[in-house]
């Protein structure tokens, strides 16, 4: 049902892309990841030793979800609804 324990890729606003197992998300979209790996390790050697992390929701640009675990069209609809609700308010 939820995406916890799935592998996701979080792209941050500083262009760092972190792939890891999603442990939890809260209402600010803060994200906890386990067994993480940075996309471009050569550019970010300081991240090689980091095994898990907590990401503040405000620094996230994108979260790439596993396609198999997501109904893309439904998600599109959900975002449309959300957008419609936002404009209504």
């Amino acid at each position: 049902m939820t995406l916890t324990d799935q592998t996701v890729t979080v792209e941050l606003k500083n262009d760092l892309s972190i792939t890891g197992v999603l442990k939890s998300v809260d209402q600010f979209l803060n994200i906890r990841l386990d067994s993480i790996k940075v996309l471009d390790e050569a550019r970010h050697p300081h991240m090689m030793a980091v095994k898990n992390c907590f990401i503040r929701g405000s620094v996230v640009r994108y979260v790439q979800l596993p396609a198999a675990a997501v109904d893309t069209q439904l998600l599109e609809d959900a975002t449309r609804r959300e957008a419609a609700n936002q404009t209504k308010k």
Partner: protein
Amino acid sequence: MAFFGLPESQKYLEGGLHEDEDVAVYTWGEDGYDGLGDALVEGNDDFNDDTFGGSDPIGQDFDFQSGRKLEALERPAERTQTYQSHRDHHVPEQRLEPQKPQEQPKASTIESLWDNKSPFSVLPKFDSNRGAERPHLGSQGSAQSTDHGRTQSHPRIRTVEEIEAEMRAAAKQARSGASPSLPRAYAQPSDGHRPQPTSLEELERQMKQHNLNQLPRGSSPLTGFPTHVAQHSFAHQRGSDGRSSSGSISEAQLLQLQRLQLQQQQQQQQEALQQQMYRQRQVELAEMQGQIPLDYQQQQQALAQYQQSLLAQLKPDEFIQASSRSPQLSFDPEVQEAVRQKASRQIMEQEQLEGRRRRKAMKISRMSRYNDLMTQSDKDFITRIQVSQLVTADPYAEDFYAQVWSTLVRNRMGGGDTEGSVIKFGQNGGVGGGVPGQRGSGRRQNAIQRMEAQVERIISNARIREKEKGLHSIHSLQGALGKTSGRSYKAAPRQLLQVDAVAPSSPSLSHTQAQQHTREGSADFIAHTAKSSVHATTHQREPSPVEAEGHSDNKPLTRKQALMLIEGLYDLLLKIEHMRREQPAPEDLAGVDDWKNRRASLIDEVLHTLQTQVPLDACVPHPLISILAPAKGKRVIPRVLRHLDPRRQLGLLYAIVANFSQLDVVIDAHYLDTPQDSPERKEVERQTQLFITHVFQSYLPLLQDLTLQPIHEMTILLLERGNLVLLAKSRPGLHLLTFILSQVENFKQEIAEGSQRAGLPTSSELQSWQTLYDRLFHVLSSHLVDFFPSTRLAAAMPFGIDYYLDPNITDVLDLPVWRFLAAFAVHASMEQQQILVVRLREKVLDNVVSASKGTEIEYRRRLDNVDLFLHALGLDSSQINI
């Protein structure tokens, strides 16, 4: 009294106080002595001189007190005592210093035992660093030592302050564990400062005690153990060279020492040294057991330094003497060395292990600082606030994805729960909120249940409050834990989505370009056919006022416009789908009517958004075709069709079919004929799949129910308005043509079987179909070979198809063409069949010939392909002779 003045004291002495004679006055030895003493008769004094030594000079033999000779005798025991008590030794060093020189010069009969000439000569010198050599004693030892310290009488009476200080030091020692500080170890030495006149009995008692303490720890019985002090201390000296320390003497070494000790004579020393060895062993055992003090290494270093400095103090000749005298007593140096190395290695390992353990413990302790910083109720409180913000009165609206997704999953699982059952918070145990290990078991499960109950309460309370307060309550807790959105992201705005209206760069956006590119060919064709009369027969519509404002300019939609329309379409569809949930009860007639009207108007809006009202020739491509270009435009069709009645579905189908050759999947189909795996090719492949699965498949049910009339009309549309050859070279086009032809064939067969089903075509209709087919045949027959993807691929490649492509793939690609040809052939007249055979003769032969070369599977597949067509002609591949 004499201090108060001489005259008065003189008076007393002279017996001047005779006036008051109360005081008896004895005058023996004075001038006024009455001489009564002389009157006593005393005899037997003749041998007094013999008895008391007479007037001979008195020797020192009897004088045990003054010369401290006893000390020498007791020295070993004392040393032991000082070792034991060095922990609670509190007297500062400066106090000891002046006393040392006093003792050192003392050398007498027994002391000579300890002088530099004896094998034990080194020991006294080492007294001062004994404590350093034994960096610490076990707790057991310290307890004993304090005992001894108490019971033994000290010649120098300690002050209360000293005793207090001692007790404090002892307490501190106990607290800090087995880690005596270095200065104290240095301060410890000095024999004289606290001479402990230990009797032999006391020593024996101590030793027994030690034996009792030692034996349970698994050590060997230590009868008459050492006396080989020379070797021992010599070993210490050598150890001080920096190679190893006294702590490195192993048990094996000790056993050797034990053997050697038989050469020693003096019982007193034996006993004392024995005790010393016990101590040593105790220390070693403690070390082996990993009870190495924290600053053990530093101590070792300091000890080595100290020993070296002592060696320097030692007179060179003494050192040489000592070392030269010992060989016959010392054991084989190689064995000794090996043993020492082994021991030191063991100690190193122990130290490493210990260090690791300590680091781990430190880490844990550092982390545990934050343990229980928040109580469970604190955490629950936070979670409740978080949850209360997530709680909503309308979960379907607020959490659309989760609700629909869960419904879908349940349906897929076959659970078939009642529709509209809403997933609730915490159902899966995963709350988020950064709390790890939420899904626990046992007690945790219980806690989660309690949480759920609490949350239920929160939800109901929130609802009540919402009702009471109206709209404001929604925001009651908003921002309770901070704001979700700040302004920071606006500081450096970054355009995230870039929809390029003119020149798309990514492959997915390449259609408009491709369309413009390939349109040259088809545009002329369409321009021609547009002038013909056919299109007017089906779609004679006047532009409505609405479309006049939208697309009166008759320009094709830009990609951006198309995307906007698609989004509008989805919004409409969502509204319509949502309406289904708001369907009023059937009894509520007015409500039902109102609902139906609203729904109908929404559907009208959908069709309008799809641009079906725009004249077919308004522009190229038609707005509807532009909407179908993006993937989500293709995906929207099935959802639209769900809400349309069959008449409108058919209308939409006409609109699509009329402009079929404008479709991206038809125009871009030539990309599929390139052997290279280019991004364009991939994209076209994807779009083609999408078109077939979403648009074509969703129309299948409708198509199967069609009568000949609409099929006929569609064929005319295709024939008149589209580029049939281009269309037939694309997979969707070929699918459509095949479907039309086979559908008509079905009608024919049903009629042949004498079926009376309603909707079957009349003979006149079939007649007109046949003329239409003739036209179709005329257009297509000369291009039949080009329909094969394998042929087109081969044409694109200079070295033949087999050079590049796996025939397995081309066979699969060719299958729809063979199918089409089969459907095409069944309608053909005899002459038409002749033409078909002539045109396709080579292709058929090619396949049959190459089939015989391939594997069994390839062979079968190829022949099956060919037979599809040949059977339609009433032939079979087996009839062909190569």
